[in-house]
């Protein structure tokens, strides 16, 4: 449609035009609201979190390994919490990326139309499973099984949390990757098949490289989701603020720390500010992930056969 033509001034309908202008401004404001919300989130995290740094230096906070917020004097070092978050994110990615991409490949190129009609909603349903339910399953079902089968002291550990996080990340990775595979120009696929390549060869050497940026975006967003997810790590990761040495160790990731401790923290205490400061760190890490994902999807977008 030609929107420009309508915003031209019209002498006969001056008031109407002015009204249209105000309506347009209203919708622009509504669109801009998300930007405002982002700014407010930043302001309110920093407004509370910044007070911690009146008493604790930034290096001590980021690199200190002791997290004893209720001791006197208290220690507010979050290095072990950051490592805990990175550990569950890394291990869950090792599980979720191959599985998520494989499912995308299967849905995009292998599955028959009928199978796809059933499987796509199944993946979507998986995405809508509430995180507290996965946390519950990890805690009540998987943890005792793990403890028994692997003969370890506790089933609440990195591996268990990572498995549950993988279930949350897979739908994100799959749906974005599948879209990317579908966006690869059809003629590339047909040319490859016409040259005698098998479907598998076409998939791995033509479609996969063509969709790589989209798949990369999906992987990073999936990892970002695992990093920021709260209930699973709160219930399943074990909760010990320590640097882990194996995947059967207990950790206390950043979101779990906030969720577990905010309830018992007096408003306006140093501990309260520290939890907001952790929120700042978590926010910045996931923001970084999201910006990288946005950059990849913009920068390396496959615009057509000609850019290959």
């Amino acid at each position, binding site marked *: 449609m030609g*929107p420009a033509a*309508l915003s031209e001034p019209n002498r006969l309908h001056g008031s109407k035009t002015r009204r*249209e202008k105000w309506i*347009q401004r*209203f*919708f*622009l404001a*509504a*669109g*801009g*609201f*998300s*930007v*405002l*919300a*982002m700014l*407010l989130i930043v302001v*309110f*995290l920093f407004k509370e979190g910044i007070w911690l740094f009146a008493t604790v230096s930034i290096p001590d906070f980021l690199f200190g390994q002791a997290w004893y917020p209720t001791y006197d004097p208290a220690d507010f070092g979050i290095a072990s919490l950051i490592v805990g978050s990175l550990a569950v994110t890394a291990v869950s990615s090792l599980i979720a990326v191959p*599985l998520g991409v*494989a*499912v995308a490949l*299967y*849905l995009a190129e*292998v*599955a028959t139309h009928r199978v796809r009609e059933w*499987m796509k*909603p199944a*993946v*979507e*349903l998986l995405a*809508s*499973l*509430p*995180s*507290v*339910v996965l946390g519950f*399953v990890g*805690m*009540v079902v998987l943890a005792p099984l793990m403890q028994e089968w692997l003969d370890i002291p506790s089933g609440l550990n990195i591996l268990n949390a990572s498995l549950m996080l993988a279930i949350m990340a897979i739908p994100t990775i799959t749906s974005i990757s599948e879209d990317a595979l579908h966006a690869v120009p059809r003629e590339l696929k047909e040319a490859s098949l016409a040259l005698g390549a*098998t479907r*598998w*060869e076409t998939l791995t050497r033509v479609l996969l490289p063509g969709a790589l940026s989209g798949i990369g975006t999906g992987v990073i*967003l999936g990892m970002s989701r695992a*990093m*920021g997810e709260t*209930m699973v790590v*709160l*219930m399943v990761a074990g909760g010990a603020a320590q640097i882990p040495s194996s995947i059967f160790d207990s950790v206390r990731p950043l*979101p779990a720390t*906030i*969720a577990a401790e*905010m*309830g018992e923290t007096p408003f306006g205490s140093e501990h309260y500010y520290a939890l*907001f400061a952790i929120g700042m760190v*978590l926010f910045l890490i996931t*923001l970084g*992930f999201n*910006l990288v994902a*946005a950059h990849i999807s913009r920068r390396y977008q496959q615009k057509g056969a000609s850019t290959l």
Partner: protein
Amino acid sequence: MSLDGLGLRKLREKVAFGLLRLAMLVVVGALGGILLHVVLQGAGVLGWRFLTDVPREAMTQGGIFPAIVGTLYLTAGALLVALPLGVSAAIYLSEYAREGKTLAVVRLGIGNLAGVPSVVFGLFGLGLFVVFFKMGVSLLAGSLTLGLLILPTVIGASEEALRQVPSTFREASLALGATRWQTIRKVVLPAALPGILTGSILGLGRAAGETAPIMFTAATFYSLRLPESPFSQVMALPYHIYVLATAGTHIEQTRPLQYGTVLVLISLVLGLSLFAIIIRTRMRRTKKW
């Protein structure tokens, strides 16, 4: 020899496709396994009394009625916040925005809002609504927080629905002398409405299942009464599951109640999602344009 080569390549394809199928089965199996387990364990508890009674005997007996009501209120409140805002933002994106800096900034805002961890939304809700606006831990503060959380979902779904309305619809209306707003209100929005509603239902499901954002903004551990005003604290299904499974002194004793609550929550959330998915599939099939 070349036939052998082809045979080998075909075999490789077969094995590879088999592995992909296996991956699919693992993922669907995880979903199926979880659902089956919860249904088998939780079905026994489910009954009229469980759904309509308040918790009794230090939450080891009785039902979850206040938590069901609380979750419904919170979810409805979130939608009340997110729907008007989200649809308006989508109208801007699809009908008014032109390529340029403003649009890029708006898109960046929406994209990053979607990536903010839910627990950070909780902190934000605590800082802004509970403390700064002095709403206290309340239904209102929780609804506003959840509303912001699902805003990107609602915007995304609404924009997609608006974009699917053919431009010929708009052109025909504009050619008849309608203004842009008249065109949007009388032509574009009605045509996009089913899609918008479907997307909103997906957002609704997300709001119902979230725990972290309401932990410090709305949820209470235990309440016999239903919320009386927007400033009441409420019980909520996801928080109830968390509390029963971790913080109670009777964790093992309340296991059946936990499974029952999980089953109710899953039925609610997946029911909403399934409903939305079915409507969407049907709409795609019968779309008139």
